[in-house]
């Protein structure tokens, strides 16, 4: 799987990495049980600081997407169903985005289309 980052973007590199790994899992490019490269080799391949990759891995671990196992490294978790806390966290994250969309004049149908469009992108 290929990860692309834009070092000059306003979005910090660790967030770009986190987002791309999540998209990769959603698309099926990365499967539960797959391990991510070691922090050192990932940082070396990209030519970025190891802290950047470390921060991204810890973020993914905090969100329950990967598990950091001593010696084996970062492994993608098998998650069956969303729990209450995660639901609440996502709810909080969606809220301002959906509010912004409504304020800017999106209709309910357009919003549903947008969600379906993104879902479709993930399934291909």
């Amino acid at each position: 799987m290929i990860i692309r980052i834009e070092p000059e973007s306003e979005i910090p590199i660790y967030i770009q990495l986190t987002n791309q790994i999540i998209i990769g899992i959603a698309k099926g490019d990365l499967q539960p049980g797959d391990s991510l490269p070691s922090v050192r080799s990932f940082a070396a391949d990209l030519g970025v600081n190891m802290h950047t990759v470390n921060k991204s891995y810890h973020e993914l671990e905090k969100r329950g997407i990967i598990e950091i196992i001593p010696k084996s490294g970062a492994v993608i978790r098998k998650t069956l169903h969303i729990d209450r806390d995660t639901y609440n966290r996502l709810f909080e994250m969606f809220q301002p985005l959906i509010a912004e969309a409504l304020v800017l004049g999106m209709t309910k149908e357009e919003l549903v289309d947008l969600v379906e469009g993104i879902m479709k992108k993930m399934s291909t």
Partner: protein
Amino acid sequence: MVFMIPLFILLFLTVIQAALPYFVKRTITFGVTIPEQYIHDERLSAYKRKYTVLASISSLLLILIFCFWILWRSPAEDVLIFISTVFEFGIIFISLALYFYFHGKTKAYKTEMQWTEQLKQVGVVDLSARSEDSLPPWYIYLFPMIITLGLMGYTIFQFNLLPDEIPTHWGPTGEPDAFTEKSPFSAIQLLLFLLLLQLMFLGIQFGMKSSGIKLSATNLAASKNRQFILRRLSSWFSFFTVLLITMLFSFFQITIIHPGLFSNSILTIIIPFGTMILILAGTVILVLKVGRSDKSSQVLVEDPIMDVDEDRYWKGGLFYFNKNDPSIFVEKRFGVGWTINLANPIGYFILFVPLVIILILAFV
């Protein structure tokens, strides 16, 4: 006949140095990052041609002077070898001076053309690259090391057989020409150097393996091909070099213990020259295979993107200094092979510690 060898080496150097701009990574011209969209720019091609022509003419002129000098003075072997080394440095100096001249011109031209202004920089990683990276395993280095340790044991076992004067240097024809007093240390000195060299190469192998697989966002396939070929071939070439050096040093050690064994044998000439010729041949294969590995594909870059411009980490386009990058080595920008990340202390440790120990042992 002896003068043929330095002459051959000088010609070899001339060809390699003059052709270098054509063997470096496709998106680098004289140490400057050029976006994929502009790598076939007319002016840049002209710079490369000029460099090659100027480097060949001036190097050949030096070789001509060298030949006249030989004919005029008919020097002794050791003088000949010394002066040929001076000329080798002369050729390297010429190409380096030309490199810096064109590095400056390319840098100015890139700024003038404002190529990077409209392009977005993109860095890329292939998460599966590590599993496709096939480098030889580290433990193959145990084989030459065991040979060295075995020979040390044998030398100590045969200590009484050793002459009172231990050879420490061999002339161009393989005959010893410098000696030191016999002691348990001087008896195995050569093998200690060999062991340190083997450890250094093992460290280099480790460094190459853990260094980054750098890919290009604008030409993923070609850059991946080049990185894999560079990593695989250069680590096998290192091992091959270690084997040859081990063979050469072991041969010298055996001639120390049993001076009569190979006296007047053709082996005393074949082994040193054979080693040198095989290492030169390996270098040619490495330069050609790696140098051509990313040149065949013609790509069209549709998006307005370019690779991350790392020029600011490359001092003079030659020296890499990047504190963020945990890589120990990175691919050279002018030449084929690796260079050290000067901001990473592990690299100094691998390369300089063994060399410093060898120098201390040799001169104290």
